[in-house]
């Protein structure tokens, strides 16, 4: 019986059709496993081997990876959203409405983008918490912790710039409140302590952020470009650096 099956298997895998599809068999060897990671463009950032405890969910909570996954989801859904959205005060709100009611799966697309963004903020905070609790910022990972702190800020800023884009009351006032504090920046804000004479409402840091004295159409354009181009690019570069350093610093930290 077994012999028979083996013969059949061999017959199939030796057939011309099979061999035209699959170039060679799969070796179950360490060499094969190593090459699998090294030769794959998506996997090559991984080392060939990791210590066993790094696989443990209870150790990493998977939170760094989930943060990255959420970033990828927002990138893909975000590009799709860009096809339907125009960042002008006339169109922005109605484009979002149109997306919700008339585009097939438009609502689902918007939901996924928004909830993945919120998910990313949650997971990045939990990731930082985990890294602290395991003391993983200690030598030699000091620098990568610093890169992480910048990534945390970038994540907040990514989410914050996106918050304005639906151009509804929620968006408008959340961003108004969120940027109001900038007027009180010492020296550089017109209401801040030690603001010199030439600093006014029309040239302080808040003006630079909003491209105006209140949240308006130019703010929308500015936030759109920051949200869709500038900040994602910055985040990608920093993540590449972050992942590279995780590996160069000896992989996931452990008690050795």
């Amino acid at each position: 019986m077994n012999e028979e099956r083996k013969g059949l298997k061999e017959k199939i895998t030796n057939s011309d059709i099979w061999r035209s599809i699959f170039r060679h068999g799969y070796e179950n060897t360490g060499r094969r496993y190593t090459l699998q990671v090294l030769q794959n463009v998506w996997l090559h950032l991984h080392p060939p081997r990791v210590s066993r405890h790094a696989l443990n969910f209870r150790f990493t909570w998977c939170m760094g990876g989930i943060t990255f996954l959420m970033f990828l989801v927002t990138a893909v859904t975000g590009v799709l959203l860009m096809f339907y959205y125009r960042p002008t005060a006339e169109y922005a709100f109605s484009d979002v409405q149109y997306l919700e009611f008339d585009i097939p799966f438009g609502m689902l697309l918007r939901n996924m983008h928004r909830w993945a963004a919120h998910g990313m903020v949650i997971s990045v905070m939990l990731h930082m918490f985990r890294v602290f609790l395991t003391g993983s910022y200690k030598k030699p990972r000091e620098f990568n912790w610093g890169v992480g702190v910048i990534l945390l800020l970038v994540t907040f800023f990514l989410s914050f710039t996106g918050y304005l884009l639906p151009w509804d009351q929620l968006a408008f006032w959340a961003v108004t409140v969120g940027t109001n504090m900038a007027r009180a920046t010492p020296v550089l804000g017109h209401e801040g302590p030690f603001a010199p004479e030439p600093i006014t409402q029309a040239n302080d840091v808040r003006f630079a952020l909003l491209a105006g004295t209140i949240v308006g159409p130019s703010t929308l354009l500015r936030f759109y470009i920051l949200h869709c181009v500038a900040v994602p690019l910055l985040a990608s570069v920093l993540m590449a650096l972050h992942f590279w350093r995780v590996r160069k610093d000896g992989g996931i930290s452990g008690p050795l």
Partner: protein
Amino acid sequence: MEHFIALVTKPDNVPIVAILFLIPYFLWLSYRQARQTDLAGVPSDAALNDKVYVWPYLCRNEFICAIIVMLVLGIWSITIDAPLEEPSDPTKTPNPSKAPWYFLALQEMLVYFDPWVAGVVLPGLIIAGLIAIPYVDINPKGKGYYTIKERPFALAVFCFGFIILWIVLMVVGTFLRGPGWNFFAPWQKWDPHLVVPLTNVNLSYLFGIRDEPTANFFGFVVVAGYYALGPIFYVWKQKSSRFLQELGLVRYILVSFLFLTMLALPIKMVLRLGLNIKYVWVSPWFNI
């Protein structure tokens, strides 16, 4: 109560509710591992030198994790719609106006400090402080595993800052702050016309000081005295404490400054809520 349930189930507040479950869960998970290490000792080298191939073992885990997360996200996205309110209108200010949920701890700080402190200086110091952590924490133990015994001070400070001053304030800001940013318990109705009498006075006033230059000087002395606690403690303990000698003066000054600044927030909260104190230091240029 009804409005509170409506608030909690608002689509944009789902992350906050999730955090309310996630933080205790992960605290429990890490506490269990820490206790195990503290009782049984750090795992031996033998177990640690055990290496496994990334393909298939790690990649399989990543794949399973990604599928589960995508499932959760998919269900979340199918069942709960992203909010879209009326078109923006600069003339209609909603009350309360809130920043996005992850900035609500900062907005909450505005109750206790002027915007330049709560909105600019403190966030700046939080960032600087976070980046400084690896350079000022010279304890070589507790690297790469959960433990409480080997680094109680570091854990206590970080957990206090993260859980109480960031997460709890965020939750309070979302669920318990109503019109006029007034505090409302869950069972209280949000009353937009509620007027809370402002009877706050400055610390100097409480001490009977009425003229401005003296009040300014008094405030300066209080704040300077508060920050001087750091150096005083150093001078007092430096001889007897090996830890302080290893830490060194520069690191110590940084740690004590950041630590006292962090504690200034709960202190100011107590002063405001308990004694109705508005400012500790009133000067012609700024108030703290």
